[in-house]
């Protein structure tokens, strides 16, 4: 194994591979920093070009894009209140308030360092436990995934501000939109045009839901730019000093560990992971300002948690061929395009390949940290771009980005409709973050409940013969009760996310 790891580093550190990974990191950052363009779109468009490369280089390029894009989605979330990827939706909760106070650069730097810590944790997991865990994941069936998704849904109660009823209304709308398209039985629901058969595409909906309300707000309030406050001139040294680490190290570690587990779990992924780690940090943190008003621990938790769940998602992908997200679908595709079948034999027959990828993950992470820290300075300045330039650029790029996901014009329309819905909800004081959570978790929840009923015969058989499922369900009830009680104790503001 040590031999394989050394060999892996030798291969992944070849000049060509390092250059490709650096290119991937830059592409990931550029795509995810522009609202509307996503890492998934970049990966989809680059996959055909990777056909001519060796398998190792192609996969290293793709994971570099993916990992960097999940982090860089935090940049527009912080600066513009528009998450560049769905995983950054938790980042904006505290990241954007920080930017509004003139601390955009601090928030961005914190997010890149968090992402780095999370990614390294994921890379360690890949390197040392991937083959072991692959066999365990097989036994996480529909009952477990259902219970887990219910746990994710209970987060809605605690993470969002504003009245509880409004958050629940938002999540219900998300759950409903998630039912459009094929039902688990194969029946087509609410399909008013065949374009809706496979449901409302998540990424175009995300683009619209967050981009348009923000742009419309700029027009409505005649704001000359997003952030009014001039960034402070004194040098911000947060996380460059030992005392910051003494205070926050546990948050990094906790979020990284939770994130890695979320990445391995089928049906979770970076988005759910970042919400869970954010919620955990919020639960234990009593410092000022409160979460939701610009607490740096919120940014640490969400970004560490998101990136810890990125590369660890390769564990089920490589060992079982099971993709956890669009991005892993593309990575599996890159493997099969080069004649490598993901699955149990991948580790046996192509060990050199696998270990080159796994060690390459470390190299890609370091490149991301270096390039990200360098980029943090000037990406923070995005918030100062005048509205009259920002508006046309972001609108056009967002809509082209919505098209680029599936090369489908209908998705562009979906983005605009989602945007109008988001604007309407936000002007009623309803946050759209729970809607996103409902839209992601709804189909997982329903499909796995339906499947569990068919496999185990009844809901009780499904729960009581599956201890892990039962544990997660109890956990969700507990978390719900806890959140409801603590909501009663703390006066909750009426701010809108």
């Amino acid at each position, binding site marked *: 194994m040590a031999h394989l790891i050394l060999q892996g580093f030798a291969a992944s550190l070849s000049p060509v591979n390092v250059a490709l990974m650096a290119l991937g990191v830059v592409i990931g950052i550029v795509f995810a920093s522009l609202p509307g363009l996503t890492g998934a779109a970049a990966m*989809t468009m680059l*996959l*055909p070009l990777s*056909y001519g490369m060796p398998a190792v280089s192609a996969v290293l390029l793709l994971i570099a894009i993916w990992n960097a894009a999940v982090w860089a989605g935090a940049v527009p979330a912080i600066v513009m209140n528009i998450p560049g990827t769905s995983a950054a939706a938790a980042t904006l909760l505290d990241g954007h308030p920080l930017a509004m106070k003139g601390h955009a650069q601090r928030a961005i730097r914190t997010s890149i360092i968090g992402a780095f810590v999370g990614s390294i944790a994921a890379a360690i997991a890949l390197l040392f436990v991937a083959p072991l865990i692959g066999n365990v994941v*097989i*036994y996480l*069936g*529909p009952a477990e995934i259902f219970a887990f998704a219910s746990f994710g849904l209970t987060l809605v109660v605690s993470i969002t501000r504003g009245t509880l009823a409004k958050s629940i209304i938002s999540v219900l709308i998300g759950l409903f939109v998630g039912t459009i398209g*094929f*039902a*688990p*039985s*194969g029946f*087509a629901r609410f*399909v008013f*045009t*065949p*374009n*809706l*058969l*496979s449901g409302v*595409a998540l990424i175009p909906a995300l683009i619209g839901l967050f981009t348009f309300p923000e742009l419309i707000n700029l027009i409505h309030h005649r704001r000359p730019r997003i952030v009014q406050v001039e960034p402070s001139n004194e040098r911000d040294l947060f996380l460059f000093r030992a005392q910051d680490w003494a205070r926050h190290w546990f948050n990094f570690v906790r979020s990284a560990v939770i994130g890695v587990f979320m990445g391995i779990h089928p049906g979770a992924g970076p988005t759910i992971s970042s919400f869970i780690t954010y919620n955990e940090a919020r639960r234990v943190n009593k410092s000022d300002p409160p979460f939701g008003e610009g607490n740096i621990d919120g940014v640490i938790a969400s970004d560490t948690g998101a990136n810890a769940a990125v590369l660890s998602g390769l564990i089920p992908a490589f060992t*079982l*061929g*099971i*993709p956890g997200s669009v991005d892993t*679908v*593309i990575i*599996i*595709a*890159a493997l*099969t*395009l*080069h*004649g490598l*079948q*993901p*699955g*149990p*034999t*991948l580790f*046996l027959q192509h060990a050199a390949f696998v270990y080159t990828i796994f060690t390459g993950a470390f190299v890609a992470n370091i490149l991301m940290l270096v390039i990200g820290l360098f980029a943090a300075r000037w990406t923070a300045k995005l918030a100062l771009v005048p509205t009259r330039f920002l508006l046309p650029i972001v609108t056009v790029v967002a809509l082209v980005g919505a098209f680029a996901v*599936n*090369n*489908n014009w*209908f*998705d562009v329309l979906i983005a605009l409709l989602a945007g109008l819905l988001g604007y309407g909800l936000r002007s009623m004081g309803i946050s759209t973050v729970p809607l996103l959570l409902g839209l992601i978790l709804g189909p997982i929840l329903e*499909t*796995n409940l*339906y*499947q569990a009923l*068919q*496999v185990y015969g009844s809901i009780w058989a499904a729960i009581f013969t599956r201890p892990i499922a039962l544990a997660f369900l109890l956990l969700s009830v507990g978390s719900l009760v806890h959140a409801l009680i603590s909501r009663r104790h703390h006066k909750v503001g009426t701010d809108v996310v």
Partner: protein
Amino acid sequence: MARKFRGGVGASAALGFAASMVLMALPTASAAAPKYPTRPIEIIVPYAAGGGVDQTARALAPILQQELKVPVIVSDIPGAGSITGTSVASDSVADGYTLFFDSPGIIDAPWIERGVPFGPQSFKYVGQITYIPNYLAVSVTSPFKTLKQLVAYGRKHPNKLKAPFTAGWPSTDVMGAEFAFDAHLKFTTVSGFTGGPAELLSAIAGRTSFSYNNTGEVLSDVRAGKVRLLATSAPTRSPVFPNIPTFEQQGFPVAVGVWQGLAAPAKTPQYVMNVLDKALAEAAKSPELKKNFAKIGITVDYLNSPETTKLIYSEYKSDGALFKKLGVAK
């Protein structure tokens, strides 16, 4: 209203003018067949990048490019099973510069889903380039060593066996339904799978009794000794798994595989079709294509235009009959 009407006339007049300008610019010699192709050709794949159909198209594109001497670009337009991309392709300009990569999705969707604007008649078929057999797979821990044992158990215990189902009727599940029907078996259907790999995982974990997969999906697990194949839906045994008998050999006339090939919108002129027919036939002979296909685990199974057309229409009819028997036809 009048204004709008006038605007309409103006627009079409402008169009007519533009069209006549274009016509004037073209060489007037229309007696000989126009030269084709002179600019890049786009092949629409109605599935996501990296899917099975996309992989085949991308393996074929460079070879076609050598034959046609213009760039051949693959565009994926996924969505709604394969309906979005197929609709776009069937509706595109029939000038030979937008082609389509066809697979069984085009003959199944028109039977099942409402509002599908295409059918097999929406395309002209250049030819089939590959055929991918499907398999019925069980976990190695399963008590069923042969298809016969599975059928015998299933007949004795109706609804005891759990069969997987993926929404949108991929060809693997059409095979499963056909098999259940021919063998007079009743299964408990476990639906909500996202595709072949998820079905296989569920079978390995013992949550379902078996799964329906294509070659690529089972390859790794068969070699690792986790999965046993009981039958293949190909008309003959697959060269990849020569010891797996076909359904036909075991007494069930199930032959549902994934054919893939090149097609063009129905109104494409004959001189274009002639060029494409020749290019695909030549590409099929190329050793480089064989190598490209082997890399992604498929074989070159070329059929010419009339053969492909005949096959597609006959499968269109037989699938329609199956869906009607199953009660899922719209």
